[in-house]
């Protein structure tokens, strides 16, 4: 039973409070979505969970252990893995080599300097399975720079999965994708193994309402409301502050960011 807890987490950049007393509990194997208008502090919250940022105050606990002071690398090693909003890959490597690299680091074979990489069949086997899992099995030998944007987003998730995570943080996995690519990503996310705790930041409300067990609405760094998709849909405050303002954001995210 792995549970991720945040207790009165606060983070400010100068006078701008981007995370304010966020206390949340993420239960093992559940699916969470974090939504909120742009600038609500969603990505900052992810950066705090993953260890890219240190909170000003408050605590983060994984399975009861205080992990607040651990950096990104240590958190990746105890089971918190993330994908990034902007593709953050090994650009000169192939799809397979990207995933195999992450597997090699996780399996502690990366420091080996006396045997060629190709001899580590268990690493390559794992990388193949993950490529299959995210639907990139046909592109394994393609260099990242020749990969379509949507496939790069899939690889982004693959690198996070290679960390053998307990908790998977996906930062806008469908941002900038075409409808077909979004459908493929939607399928990928829904097929993730059930023992994994998954937290996504997502603007596509179709995906969010269908996927999430719990939805957290952030607004100006605070938890505005938390509940099941049905509760969120019917929440007056959410309608007014979020869905109302932007219109119910069904499929509107594709227009936000042009695909490169």
């Amino acid at each position, binding site marked *: 039973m792995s549970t991720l807890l945040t207790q009165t987490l606060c983070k400010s950049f100068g006078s701008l409070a981007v995370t304010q007393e966020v206390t949340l509990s993420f239960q093992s194997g559940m699916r969470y979505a974090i939504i909120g208008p742009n600038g609500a502090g969603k990505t900052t919250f992810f950066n705090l969970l993953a260890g890219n940022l240190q909170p000003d105050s408050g605590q983060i606990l994984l399975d009861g252990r205080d992990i607040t002071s651990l950096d990104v690398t240590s958190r990746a090693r105890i089971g918190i893995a993330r994908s990034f909003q902007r593709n*953050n890959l090994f650009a000169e490597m192939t799809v397979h080599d990207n995933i195999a690299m992450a597997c090699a680091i996780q399996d502690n074979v990366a420091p080996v300097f006396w045997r060629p990489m190709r001899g580590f069949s268990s690493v390559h086997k794992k990388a193949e399975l993950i490529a299959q899992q995210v639907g990139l099995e046909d592109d394994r030998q393609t260099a990242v720079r020749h990969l379509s944007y949507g496939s790069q987003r899939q690889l982004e998730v693959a690198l996070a999965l290679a960390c053998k995570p307990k908790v998977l943080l996906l930062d806008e996995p469908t941002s900038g994708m075409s409808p077909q690519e979004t459908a493929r990503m939607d399928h990928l996310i829904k097929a993730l193994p059930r023992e994994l705790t998954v937290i996504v930041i997502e603007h596509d409300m179709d995906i969010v309402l269908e996927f999430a067990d719990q939805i957290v609405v952030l607004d100006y760094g605070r938890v505005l409301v938390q509940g099941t998709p049905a509760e969120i849909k019917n929440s007056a405050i959410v309608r007014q502050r979020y869905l109302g303002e932007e219109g119910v954001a069904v499929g509107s995210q594709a227009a936000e960011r042009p695909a490169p």
Partner: protein
Amino acid sequence: MVMTRNSLRLSIGVAAAILALIMQLSAGTFAQELFAEAAILAVFALSLDLLARSGLVSFGHAGFLGLGAYTFGGLAVLQNWPPSLAIAAALAGGIISGLIIGCFAVRTSGAFFIMVTLAVAEMFFSWVFRSPLFNGADGMGGVPRLDMRSVGLDLNNPRNFATFCILICICVWMFAEYIIITPFGRTLDAIRQNANRVSAVGGRVFSYRLAAFALSGAIGALSGALKAQHTNFLSPDLATWVVSGDVLIAVVIGGMGTFVGGIIGSGLLVYLKEVLSSNFGHWYLFLGGIFIGVALILPRGIVGSVLDWRDRRHARNNPAPAREDEA
């Protein structure tokens, strides 16, 4: 011609090695000094380029060269160590100083790393420049060469010494090529391409860069030990920033990150220096002009540009199959 980028790179290296050996063995006595000088610079260039694989470009690499030369020469002359042991000590000195300096240097990158490495190398220079231990600015002569007469090779013969240096360079090159196909080497590549992502998947970027720095230090010290044997002389000039600059030029002109490029760049640099300095007074001016020209025409260096040309040609001949959703 179906040749991958990597096999083309390796083929260039093998061709360069064979060509260098043939030319050296058939060259006259005076040219032997140039072949030895170029091979030693190439070992030094490999040391810089191996570090560059991890995304760090040093501008104080002469510190390692100087340290290797002074460790070797100091122990061999002042302590009468056998040269073979003194070379081992120089290698160890390179690793140890690499680990110590690396502890703070590799926490930085980019321009800061350049400044830190430059500062440390200049510290070493000013120490040996003043230290009475090695006769300060006057330098110290009488540095012996490795004794390999037991295998029938007298290294005091310039021809033998040049062959020896080329063979050492080939060994170091093969070692570097082997390192980069191991998981450790692949991780260095990953760090160069995206250090943040390596951290995010649980890799300690600092540890890998520190190891690369120490390894680079050992190879740099080896080139210094060879340099001291070549000239039979220790001079503080071995550790000046000009030496760091020359090796950087050799690597950039040849193609950074390609290993072979640094080797070819070293040969070219030594050759041009010789030709220009024997014909012109302000020969460094001409050298600079030539390098600016090469940098403008071939921004990725000679070998880097050849490899890029191969990639473009390959992409033209094999257009990637379009995916159904990319229409």
